[in-house]
């Protein structure tokens, strides 16, 4: 069943990616003053948005886990946090790649960059905690708590360009309001690659989630067996 869904999503990802590549490198016009580098934009931004969404999902499923106590939510939370981590890393990488030619440095302590880095750190901490503790209900609760609190930074990252003096552009919604993408084809390209990355994300998430589910079920089964033996009376 959900294996089929996965294959479908995988196929969709593939097609959309092809489409996105075409749109980004052929269809969309080269930006006037930045030149070819600007095309990173079409990967950079979707990655960021996907990362945000993922962390959001993590936080929500964290809440659900604490509320309902069903391990499925914990698995979803863990999967989402990890996958989000992947895309957040991509944002940092693509951003740095972009920054070098444009700003002449890989990294600067601009507020947008900083807050993004922080976001990345927090979920790094989350994963460290999960790695260092063994897989118990307690660890799951801890994870949920961290995931929920950490999500608080996402809006800050989004707002950072507006809140603080920054060299990091705000195009989609400019400080004056209204978007600053001059050419409609750019918008199209952005939307397509956004769709592509969303599909990719969905696919990865499903994979990881399924894996974690399997692990949890395995654990549950092992417990079942042990309990059965216990009931039978031999160790």
């Amino acid at each position, binding site marked *: 069943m959900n294996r089929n869904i996965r294959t479908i999503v995988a196929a969709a990802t593939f097609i959309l990616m092809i489409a996105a590549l075409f749109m980004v490198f052929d269809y969309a016009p080269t930006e006037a003053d930045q030149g070819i580098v600007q095309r990173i934009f079409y990967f950079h931004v979707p990655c960021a948005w996907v990362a945000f969404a993922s962390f959001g999902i993590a936080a929500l499923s964290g809440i659900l886990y604490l509320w309902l106590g069903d391990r499925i939510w914990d698995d979803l939370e863990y999967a989402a946090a990890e996958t989000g981590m992947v895309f957040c890393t991509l944002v940092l990488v693509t951003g740095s790649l972009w920054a070098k030619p444009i700003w002449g440095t890989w990294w600067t302590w601009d507020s947008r960059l900083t807050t993004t880095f922080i976001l990345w750190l927090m979920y790094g901490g989350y994963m460290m905690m999960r790695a260092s503790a063994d897989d118990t*209900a307690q660890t799951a609760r801890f994870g949920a708590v961290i995931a929920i609190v950490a999500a608080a930074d996402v809006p800050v990252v989004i707002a950072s360009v507006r809140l603080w003096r920054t060299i990091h552009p705000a195009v989609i919604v400019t400080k004056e309001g209204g978007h600053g993408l001059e050419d409609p084809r750019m918008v199209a390209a952005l939307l397509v690659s956004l769709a592509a990355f969303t599909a990719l994300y969905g696919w990865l998430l499903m994979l990881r989630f399924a894996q974690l589910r399997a692990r949890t079920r395995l654990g549950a089964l*092992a*417990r079942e067996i*042990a*309990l059965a*033996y*216990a*009931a039978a*009376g031999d*160790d």
Partner: protein
Amino acid sequence: MSAPVVETHKLSMLYGQSPVLREIDFKLLPGYGAFVIGGNGAGKSTLLRILAGMAAPTAGGALIFGRDTRRMSARYRRRIGMMAHQSFLYPNLTARENLEFYAALYGLPEPRVSAETWLDKVGMAQFADARVRAVSRGMEQRLSAARALIADPLLVLLDEPFASLDSDGAAIMARLIREALDRGASVVAAMHGVPAIAGTDFQVFELARGHLGPFTPKEEETTAWTGARIRSLLHR
């Protein structure tokens, strides 16, 4: 007859894969006492921790006053008094301060007064102002008992109450148990084959290989602590 205070259904506990408690079905009525006898590692403390809501069973469940131990609200926790291996006392506070503190947390009207009375009850009045860090082990045990009983709980859980108490201490402890029962409270106490207590309002259970069964006093069990057996061993 009144509703049971403690009621477990197929209560099972695993640590990792190794079973400690196996489908224990156990019931305790108000005003009755249960002594759980078992060897080292039998699972007595684990059982008590579960009943106190300090640990969640792997399977099955335990009801305290009809409420599942996994989600006990403050109202239910209020009625339980647990004396564990650890004393839960702050080493850097004095005996009195510790009891006062817990009395306050249990919402007693007069923390100071009840602290005093309980210091008397356990024969520690004289050491009321000694830091817990500086009292002897047996004294700490007595204070730990006072801490557990200070709020007149309706369910008293005692893990090795007689451990490292001298004869007076043991007498006091026994009296406290008696009082609790007379108050209408129920008592579950974990011990090592001692004491073999008769009496209609006591059930004595044996916890072995994860099963809780009726206790069949074997001679060397009941007299384990008396000179007799140990002498024979020392002079085999």
